[in-house]
């Protein structure tokens, strides 16, 4: 049913009037939404960043195939070709034992110089660095290499770090999701209860509206507007907290970040998107809570 603009205006006016008339109730509802959304914002920022960090690390995962020291040059070459022939492998790069030692020394800085002693008698292996097309295939490829290839001493792919991170991330995601859902429902419940109190006062009005032939939507609309208003008001503070908090962390991350592999999601567009999402969740909570609370009173 198309609604006349005049009627829409009336619904907005009624909704605003009711929120104003019950300002204490409005305040209580807004506080409930605010608390919920602050927690939701923090959890979302945390979980999404963990996700981002994990997938960043995932991209970097490479398999280092350490070649058996007894292998001769021909055999090494053979191994290289065989690795190249594997399915789902993006690249295979050879790194000689001398290069490996250099890398090691560089990565250890001053202490690394001590390793210079080994330059004459390098204990390291020649290596192939294998990158999978899809990071998820890394473990499977590494297994194949260990099982089926000759002249392979060991295979390294940082399995522990990657595995732990994935596990942690999964837990964080589940715990975060459960908490967010629980919080959202609590807020909906609080709002619907708050609005229910104001509805009891308006019960007679609803009854009379029904008697004179108001449609259920006509009655519901002002409550819809009221819920929307509560949700939007409730998301203002959380969004402000999100902006300032994320800005602060983003600015100071560089200073404390000794692990440059940890990269947070960039402020723009991430914070804007999350702010939009928070506003949306707030609106949905408000509208759902208020529309739910009228339902029972419409059955006349």
């Amino acid at each position, binding site marked *: 049913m198309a609604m*006349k603009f*005049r009627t829409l205006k009336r619904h907005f006016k009624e909704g605003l009037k009711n929120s104003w008339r019950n300002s204490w109730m409005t305040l209580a509802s807004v506080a409930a939404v605010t608390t919920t959304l602050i927690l939701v914002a923090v959890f979302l920022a945390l979980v999404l960043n963990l996700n981002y960090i994990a997938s960043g690390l995932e991209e970097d995962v490479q398999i280092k195939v350490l070649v058996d020291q007894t292998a001769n040059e021909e055999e090494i070459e053979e191994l290289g070709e065989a690795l190249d022939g594997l399915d789902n492998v993006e690249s295979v790069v050879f790194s000689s034992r001398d290069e490996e030692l250099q890398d090691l020394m560089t990565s250890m800085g001053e202490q690394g110089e001590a390793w210079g002693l080994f330059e004459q008698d390098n204990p390291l292996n020649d290596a192939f660095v294998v990158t999978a097309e899809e990071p998820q295939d890394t473990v499977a490829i590494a297994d194949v290499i260990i099982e089926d290839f000759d002249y392979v001493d060991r295979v390294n792919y940082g399995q522990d770090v990657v595995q732990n991170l994935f596990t942690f991330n999964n837990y964080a995601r589940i715990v975060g999701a459960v908490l967010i859902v629980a919080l959202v429902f609590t807020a909906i419940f609080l709002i619907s209860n708050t609005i229910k109190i104001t509805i009891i006062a308006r019960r007679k009005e609803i009854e009379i*509206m029904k008697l004179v032939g108001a449609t259920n939507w006509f009655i519901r609309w002002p409550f819809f507007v009221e819920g929307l208003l509560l949700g939007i008001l409730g998301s203002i503070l959380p969004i402000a907290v999100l902006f300032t908090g994320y800005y602060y962390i983003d600015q100071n991350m560089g200073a404390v970040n000794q692990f440059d592999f940890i990269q947070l999601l960039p402020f723009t567009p991430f914070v804007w998107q999350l702010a939009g999402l928070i506003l949306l969740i707030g609106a949905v909570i408000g509208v759902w809570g208020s529309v739910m609370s009228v339902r029972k009173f419409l059955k006349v």
Partner: protein
Amino acid sequence: MIEMQQVKKTYPNGVTALNGIDINIDPGEFVYLVGQSGAGKSTFIKLIFREEMASSGQIRVNNKDLLEMKWRDVPLLRREIGVVYQDFKLLPKMTVYENVAFALEVVEESPRQIRKRVMEVLDQVGLKNKARFIPDELSGGEQQRVAIARAMANYPKLLIADEPTGNLDPDTSWEIMKILEEINGTGTTIIMATHSKEIVNTIKRRVIAIEGGLIVRDQHRGEYGYEV
């Protein structure tokens, strides 16, 4: 206007309020509904504007089948029926004008139409000069007249009055009856539930007596009473 065939109503708690009602009310009629409290008058009235649904039987109001009717069409039915109660059911914070305008806002009339129609019906019930008052500032009879004005605002073809004089003194009751008769004179069908023997026996109209969920008497120009 109203056709009922073998209408029964049993409430979820097991109480049978109506136990096989057959009735035909033509357009333009004025009908008194009499019977003891608990006889089934209120249920009869509630069935007509679908505040309650019949358990079985057939009800047609203004050529609409109420048992087949979809939920979303119920408001449209109610716009064709005006209802007046013993306790007026006015909104205390609104003025007389707003109380009446309310019924027209709900059906999305234009503001100009609303202004025009509200003054019209207030004039009809003789309260044009009290449009700015709130219900508490009016006498009981005046409040009931506001309720009648509200019920008439949508040009209903049927006006249901559930003991409209139940809370009023005799003189005021006659005033209300005069207004109802005028409305009936313009062709509006009126069904009025009442306990007033005096009114029924003075202004003689069709009397339908309900007792124990059944119609025990249906008499044109009848007298008050619900004995068989």
